[in-house]
């Protein structure tokens, strides 16, 4: 497996903006003094006249983005997830969501994989917060290929979009030659009959690894990548539940309000099925190397295997 390329989706975000800047002349980028970290600096270097630093003032940045959008420009407002969805929540709700403006929010450094910076910067609540805003589209890409495709899909979608990117380099498992991003459509990566593992973001590659291990141990698992958390692909979820009768959701986000909740919402209404959630439990993160933290919090293939085996055994 030495040839697996790893890349952080925040890098993909910055590169995609710079690459798409020529094609979409209406694209503008705002940042809140984090261009070096969110990687919008890549865009800034290529298109300095279309990049506006708002300073450490995320609330105002979201409002400025809203104002730009009223005039037909497509602003990408970029900062860490903690400040985009957390600090600026009410501005995103009232100045972007309520008027349904065409603002794209690029939220990087999501989840506990922020690592050493610790709990203050590890945003495990953003998906939950953004899901409650009517008309908000939420995309949580799994790798470099998907992240870049998501940025273009966000441009082509008319309406507010929240995009979640990570700091940690993660495996690039999608093939850019064949990958196709469809907003609101989940992707079935593996077909199984014993359990459906539904994952999002950087947990998708862990779910794929886990399914391989499970197969060797005689458990056949479906693996679904949900990159668009809202609007969610109810059909693929219901079909997977129908085929397996057991669902395991995996996300680098609080188990409250994220993918697990969204999947449960679909299934409780359409096909009541047991749903087990792997995610960050109702607790704050803490400092440490990202990979070690992910393991400690059970956000890894090993824990997916363990949890899936126990769930299948008690079926």
């Amino acid at each position, binding site marked *: 497996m030495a040839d697996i390329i790893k890349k952080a989706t925040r890098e993909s975000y910055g590169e995609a903006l710079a690459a798409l800047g020529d094609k979409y002349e209406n694209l*503008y980028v705002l940042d809140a003094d984090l261009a070096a970290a969110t990687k919008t600096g890549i865009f800034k270097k290529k298109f300095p*006249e*279309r990049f*506006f630093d*708002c*300073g450490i*003032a995320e*609330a*105002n940045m*979201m*409002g*400025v*983005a*809203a*104002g*730009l*959008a*009223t*005039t*037909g*420009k497509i*602003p990408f407002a970029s900062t860490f997830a903690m400040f985009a969805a957390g600090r600026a929540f*009410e*501005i995103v709700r*009232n*100045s972007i969501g*309520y*008027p349904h403006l065409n603002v794209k929010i690029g939220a990087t450094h999501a989840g506990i994989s922020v690592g050493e910076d610790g709990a203050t910067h590890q945003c495990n609540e953003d998906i939950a917060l953004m899901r409650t805003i009517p008309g908000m589209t939420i995309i949580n890409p799994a790798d470099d290929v998907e992240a870049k495709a998501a940025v273009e899909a966000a441009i082509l979608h008319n309406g507010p979009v929240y995009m979640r990117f990570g700091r940690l380099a993660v495996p690039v498992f999608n093939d850019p030659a064949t990958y196709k991003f469809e907003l609101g459509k989940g992707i079935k990566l593996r077909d199984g009959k014993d359990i459906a593992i539904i994952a999002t973001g950087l947990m998708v590659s862990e779910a794929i690894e886990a399914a391989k291990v499970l197969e060797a141990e005689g458990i056949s698992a479906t693996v679904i990548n949900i990159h668009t958390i809202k609007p969610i692909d109810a059909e693929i979820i219901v079909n997977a539940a129908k085929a397996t009768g057991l669902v395991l959701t995996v996300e680098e986000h609080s188990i409250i309000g994220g993918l697990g909740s969204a999947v449960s919402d679909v299934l409780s209404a359409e096909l009541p099925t047991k749903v087990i959630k792997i995610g960050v439990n109702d607790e704050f993160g803490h400092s440490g190397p990202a990979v070690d933290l992910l393991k400690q919090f059970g956000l890894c293939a090993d824990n997916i295997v363990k949890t899936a085996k126990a769930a299948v055994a008690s079926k």
Partner: protein
Amino acid sequence: MDATIKKQLEITACKVRLGIIEGVFNAKSGHPGGSLSIADVLTYLYFAKMNVYPDKPDEPSRDRFVLSKGHTAPALYSTLAQKGFFPEEELKSLRHIGALLQGHPCITIPGVDMSSGSLGQGISAACGMALSAKISNDTYKVYTILGDGEIEEGQVWEAAMFAAHYKLDNLVAIVDNNGLQIDGKISDVMSPYPIKEKFEAFGWHAIEIDAHDFDAIDNAFNEAEKISGQPVVIIQKSVKGKGVSFMENQVGWHGTAPNAEQYAQAVSELNAKLKELEG
């Protein structure tokens, strides 16, 4: 200012005030005090200053207006109705279920350029509009009205920093300094004073005027147009509840609707004023 034009603006402002009372009375809720205090400046903007097109409310070249102190929507709606963006009749269903006119400004209403009402947010959107014009070399201007209590919100100062940093001289903010907020006098609740010096320290050109004198208003906006390289704030000293005797300078009329008797008296006072002006 030309005396005929001034007289006409005073007449229109009186009609705007009547519309405010009509809207708030029929809604049985809303914010008459701060609506009445901005009736004159709104009348000036829509009838003497801004390029707007009631038959083409979304015309890209239009001047923009954001009511950052969104709770005073009755004043904006009444002005837009006078200007012909929608029938005056709509004011009677303000805040009703299914009505066009929402409790706070909503972007889907003809003539409303931005949803607002959560204080401190409108000025940021106005900055975005002004920045957009700078980027594209558009000549439209952006106006926004803030409350004096509203400027207690931290976001206002983030926006103030932004506007000066990007030299948004196509942006004019008006601070409606009526001196009162829900819990009392702004100087008692949480003093934002000195307002002029604060904006100046943030890099703005600041002008102080009497909010109810059209000559002063006209002079201020003409001065604003001559300022280059920095945003302009017009701090207008106003009377909350202006034009209705029993509402003037009374904090209790911040967010209370008149009863039938009070409504009749307010309408009678404003009609008398209108008659006197139209004499």
